[in-house]
């Protein structure tokens, strides 16, 4: 498999009233047709990583370092028209809350058609029929009628389906999904996940799926990258992560999960809180909360230890003992 997206040593810093080092050296790659889940808690830099790929972060307050390549092209160097052409055609994005991500004063059909016209320069009629096709593909019932609906006339699940239809209308090769099921009911959540998985396979599309819910990652992902404090602490296939978590943070995350918890017993929450990231981490950012922290953890950033293809852990405990 060849990589479609390669992120190398990405750093993102927000300046303003308070400086935040949101991303501190993230390297990732996503293969063609692969679904990668970015797993982590709020503020771990998952969404920021996604938005960096699209250059959606507020330009004046953001400093981005490192490299992002999409199909060999340097994405961070794209500007103006080329950037606008890239967004929505090569890479599309769906958002956490579709009721906020759709324009309230345009009908769904118009919003989808607008994207198609923008990227493919087709006629209004052709774009509209594409919009209708897309609504059918995401299985919105009575799609013809829904075409002229406004976002506020749809239910949450329907809106997210419409958002997916919009994102996939121009056949992107990469879909960025920013917690697209978090705002939905549990049952609707599962339907949307299944739909996404199905469409991903049909269209042979790569997906980066951001979530804080390991249960969601299991449903959708081939591979998982666990993020903490703007760094990747562990990557592996979904089964490797579930069955054999190596990083203490991943272990904590799994232990804190509701699945398999015994009724009445307390959940094993990870004690402490993530760092505020006003300074870039100079030691292991998880060390203050880590049950197996060593003195060396507080001295330097842990090395990323490779354990087989696509499997890496950023922890000193993974290093071969020094001879």
């Amino acid at each position: 498999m060849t990589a479609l997206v390669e992120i190398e040593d990405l750093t993102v810093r927000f300046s303003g009233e308070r400086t935040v080092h949101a991303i501190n050296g993230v390297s990732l790659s996503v293969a063609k047709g692969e679904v990668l889940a970015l797993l982590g808690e709020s503020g771990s830099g998952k969404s920021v990583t996604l938005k960096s790929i699209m250059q959606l972060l507020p330009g004046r307050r953001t400093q981005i370092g490192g490299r992002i390549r999409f199909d060999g092209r340097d994405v961070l160097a794209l500007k103006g028209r080329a950037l606008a052409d890239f967004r929505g055609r090569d890479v599309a994005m769906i958002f956490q809350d579709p009721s906020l991500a759709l324009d309230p004063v345009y009908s769904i059909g118009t919003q989808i058609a607008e994207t198609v016209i923008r990227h493919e320069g087709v006629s209004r009629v052709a774009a509209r029929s594409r919009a209708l096709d897309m609504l059918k593909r995401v299985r919105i019932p009575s799609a013809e009628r829904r075409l002229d609906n406004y976002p506020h006339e749809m239910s949450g699940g329907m809106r997210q389906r419409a958002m997916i239809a919009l994102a996939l209308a121009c056949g992107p090769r990469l879909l960025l999904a920013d917690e697209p099921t978090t705002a939905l009911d549990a049952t609707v959540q599962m339907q949307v996940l299944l739909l996404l998985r199905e469409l991903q396979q049909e269209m042979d599309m790569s997906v980066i799926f951001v979530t804080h819910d390991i249960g969601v990652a299991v449903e959708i992902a081939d591979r998982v990258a666990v993020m903490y404090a703007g760094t990747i602490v562990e990557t592996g296939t979904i089964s490797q992560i579930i069955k054999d978590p190596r990083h203490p943070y991943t272990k904590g995350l799994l232990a804190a999960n509701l699945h398999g918890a015994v009724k009445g017993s307390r959940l094993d929450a990870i004690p402490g809180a993530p760092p505020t990231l006003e300074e870039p981490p100079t030691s292991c950012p998880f060390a203050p909360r880590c049950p197996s922290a060593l003195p060396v953890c507080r001295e330097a950033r842990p090395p990323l230890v490779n354990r087989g293809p696509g499997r890496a852990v950023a922890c000193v405990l993974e290093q071969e003992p020094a001879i």
Partner: protein
Amino acid sequence: MLGYLFSRLVSVIPVALGVSLICFLLVHIAPGDPLVAIMPIDATAEQEAEMRAVYGFDKPLPVQFGIWLSNAVQGDLGRSIATGRPVGPEVTRAVGNTLLLAAAASVIGFPLGIFFGFMAGYLRDTVWDRIITASAIAGVSTPNYWLGMVLVIIFSITWPLLPSMGAGPGGSGAWVWDWQHMRHLVLPAITLAVVPMGIVMRTTRALVSDILDQDFVQALYAKGMTRTGVLRHVARNAAPTALSVIGLQLGYLLGGSILIETVFNWPGSGYLLSVAILQRDLPMLQGTILVLAMFFVTLNLLVDIAQSMIDPRISRA
């Protein structure tokens, strides 16, 4: 949509009735006997009673209202107490002049206000934003009658470029669209436009800056829209609220130009009103207020309809 239009039209009827009742009552609540102003001091009680009967002031208020309203609906607003002339034509001419002034001020104020407000909102927190916002605040806070006088001093007295008084050579009734007349419009229109321009600017800035923070704007960029495309979406989202502010400001331009019309001797409804107030000319006052109020009601209706056409949530929800 048609249903909404119809219900909105029907709802105008009670509003218009209420407004006319208030117009009628307001002038009756005001202290002072209208007849005192015109009766000679040595008039006898019989003469006064006769005069009272002629104008209908001897009947109970509800009856007076009924007569006044049914006449008004037929286009007869009574006769002026001060001049004895019919109120209707006089009000029509004055309101026409006011509308002319308001329209000129709108043409200057609203496009500029919207343009600069949009710019400030889009370029928020930049130097441009600060300059625009500061000028908007200055515009809103400047008393416009003072500004009018300053403009007169500069452009009519120091450099006699523009006239400071009246509506042109033909007097109040003979407006012609030529430079001879239009130059009379320049100073009062600019003076009148400053406050609404500032308000529209500030509203538009706040709206645009607010909308730009919403998620859907990021989503629009994410689907590859160019800046122009995104701004079109922003404009459409800002339009309903901006429209209602413009509607209110238009109302202000119609009714609030009394001071400006006085400063510039503009023969409009404000001028007419102030004269009518001084003379306690009840029919003239009632007629002028009623016509202005009806314009205001119509204006609000038009704004509502326009809003519902732009924002689907208003009519369908």
